[in-house]
C-alpha cells in the first residue's frame, strides 16, 4: 500500500451487500447505481465487500464473466472472514434468534457475515433488502430510489444505507443468555 493511498484513506467504508453487486448487472439501474457509488466514494466513503460476497457472486455468474469479475472485485476494499468476524457472526446469530421482534424469517449466513464485518469495522451497509439487516440492530441512514419503465409499468428499486446500532449491539452481546 503506498503512502498516498494511506493518506487518502476514507474515514468510513460502505460494505456492499451481494445484491448490490448483482444490480450492477441490471440494465435498468446499473448506470444510476454506479454513479451513486462513485458519488459516495468522492464524498469520502470507501467502497468495500466481504469475501463472502465473492463466493456468492462467482456462484451466480456465467463462466465467461468469471475472470473479469475476479479482476473487477479488486476495485473494492476486500474484508477477510477472520477469527473476530466468525465469532461476531455467531454472536449476532444468537441475538437475532433470541429477539422475538426480529420477524424477518431466516437471515442467511452470508448476510450475517456482512453484518458482523460492518459491526467490527464501523462500516455502513448498502443493501437492496433491509430484511437482511433487521431493525433495531441496523438503522437507515440514507435511501435511494431508482424508478424505471418496463413494459409500460413503472417499477422501483430501493437501495438503503444502513448503520449498525453499535451501542444496542454492545448491550445485546453483553447481556445475551
Amino acid at each position, binding site marked *: 500500500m503506498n503512502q498516498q493511498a494511506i493518506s487518502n484513506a*476514507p474515514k*468510513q467504508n460502505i460494505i456492499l451487500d451481494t445484491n448490490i453487486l448483482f444490480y450492477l448487472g441490471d440494465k435498468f439501474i446499473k448506470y444510476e447505481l*454506479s454513479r451513486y457509488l462513485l458519488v459516495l466514494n468522492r464524498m469520502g466513503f470507501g467502497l468495500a465487500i466481504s469475501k463472502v460476497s465473492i463466493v456468492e457472486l462467482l456462484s*451466480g455468474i*456465467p463462466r465467461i464473466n468469471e475472470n473479469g469479475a475476479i479482476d*473487477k472485485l479488486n476495485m473494492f476494499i476486500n474484508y477477510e472472514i477472520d477469527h473476530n468476524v466468525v465469532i461476531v457472526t455467531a454472536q449476532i446469530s444468537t441475538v437475532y434468534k433470541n429477539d422475538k421482534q426480529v420477524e424477518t424469517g431466516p437471515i442467511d449466513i452470508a448476510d450475517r457475515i456482512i453484518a458482523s464485518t460492518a459491526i467490527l469495522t*464501523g462500516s455502513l451497509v448498502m443493501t437492496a433488502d433491509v430484511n437482511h439487516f433487521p431493525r433495531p440492530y441496523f438503522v437507515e441512514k440514507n435511501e435511494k430510489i431508482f424508478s424505471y419503465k418496463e413494459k409500460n409499468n413503472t417499477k422501483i428499486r430501493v437501495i438503503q444505507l444502513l448503520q449498525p446500532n453499535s451501542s444496542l449491539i454492545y448491550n445485546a452481546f453483553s447481556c445475551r443468555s
Partner: protein
Amino acid sequence: MLFSDIINIMDNDDHSPTIKPVTPTGAIPVGSKDVDINTNVVPSSPLPEPNEIENKLNDAVKKDTFKPIDNNESTSDQ
C-alpha cells in the same frame, strides 16, 4: 457523456446523499474481550485509487461483468 460529467451533475443534484463519513469509534465484545471498532478487521487488499475504482466500475457496468447467470433478458441489454 463522460462518467465525470454525470458525477458533476449528481453533485449539483438536490437528491445527492447528505450523509457524511465519520471515523467509527467504540468497542464490541468479541468472545471474552472488547475489541476496538475499525482496527480489528484488516482489509486483505490495498486501498484502491479513486481513478481505479471509476475505471473498473465503468468497465464492469458496460460489460455486465456482475450479471447473474439466471438474470433473464428482461434485465440485460446484451
